């Protein structure tokens, strides 16, 4: 018998196909796992005077009037996952400056309104900046 035929073969051409499929599978799994725990929440919670009053899905774009005890307080805008306040009845409209994705919370102090993500991952090891002072 040819000695060459008896030598153990490390890599055949067909093995490369197997390895490639396995590599793609495991890398996809790794990618999926590393992103399962990540990111911003999918629901927006509106609290008024300490009470949970509204909950919206971030996927439902629209302009939502926020009212309390029959009085209009502001509009909450969800626009392709961007969330912000508009037309607030407060004196200085400071609450209209922020976007929820950037600040993590929208607040109107005079009207006691708090807007947060309901199910956000609070601390993410991958974030370059954990929090902001201003």
């Amino acid at each position, binding site marked *: 018998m040819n000695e060459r035929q008896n030598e153990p073969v490390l890599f055949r051409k067909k093995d490369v196909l197997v390895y490639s499929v396995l590599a793609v599978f495991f890398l996809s799994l790794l990618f999926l796992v590393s992103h399962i725990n990540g990111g911003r929440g999918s629901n927006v919670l509106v609290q008024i005077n300490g009470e949970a009053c509204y909950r919206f899905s971030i996927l439902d774009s629209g302009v939502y009037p926020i009212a309390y005890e029959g009085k209009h307080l502001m509009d909450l805008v969800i626009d392709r996952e961007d969330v912000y306040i508009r037309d607030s009845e407060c004196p200085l409209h400071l609450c209209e400056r922020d976007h929820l994705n950037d600040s993590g919370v929208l607040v109107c102090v005079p009207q006691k309104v708090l807007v947060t993500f309901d199910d956000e991952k*609070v601390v993410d090891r991958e974030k370059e900046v954990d929090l902001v002072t201003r």
Partner: protein
Amino acid sequence: MRLTRNSWILIASFAVLVIILITTAVLRDTEEYVSKVEIALGTTVRVVIASDKNPALIIESVLREFRRIEEKFSVNLADSEISRINGNNGQPYEMDEEMAFVIERALTIAKATNGAFDPALGNLINLWGFDKIGDVDFKGRVPSDDAILAAVASSGYENVEVNGVYITLNNGVKLDLGGIVKGYAIDRGIAIAQEMDPKATGYIDAGRDIGIIGPKFSSDSWSIGVQHPRSDNPGEYLDVVYLEKGSIVTSGDYERFFIIDGVRYHHIINPKTGYPVVKTVSATVISSTAMDADALSTAAFVLGGEFASVILPSLGGQGLFVNDEMEQFTTEGWSFFTEKR
């Protein structure tokens, strides 16, 4: 297709490696942080904590402390202790230990900064209306020059007399501890969290004034961006600092202000002139306590960055300051905090 023995060995090794990587990725964030946000002291208070000992209870205890401190120190509550002190008509008032501690610390910083931070500006702040800026019917107003002069004359820490537990306010001055109480509340919150669980980690963010409860995931620094005072891009920072402990507070002219006839009037008053400070737009201070960082950031804002960058270290603070021409100044030790550890 038939794989050779070596191929199987390679596949098995590769699979084991991937399993190790996946397990590491899943398990590395084992500390689960919980968070709650409330409105207190006229701002949002976010408590973020990881603890093996009932984090929800710790968070609730911290927030309860914020509510208690607001009830005691708010000038907008008629039955708060600070309102009773202010309404005592120049007569000696007996303080409890806590009030004495906060007021004495405020006076110490006032003296050290030659009044740049001043806890006795109640008349001025009330004249401008900044004590009511969180009210639903707030109306910004610019007082007359005469009214401002009169309010300046009845302001100033030099009129506050403390003898043991007795405080006397002379010359009609009124206290407003808004420039130090938020920091004090953060320190109290941290103390409560650490008392309930010495191994707790996380932070307290009260209106973007930050106090660290414990390092991130028990070993890492928290990375904290210092917001650019004039950028519309919320992700644009003057700098990023890394803290495992201590506190960082920023005073800026862009958070609490009103605009009349195109002029911005913000809430940080120059005690000498009675008008909002114009030469500084942002002052950020790192200190071991939030109380000191809070008061020193106000002092630095009034003093101006060039001067503050020299004297602040002697008062226990390191800082980054921006003037109205957008020039930046830092204390000598600031760069220590910008290195990731």
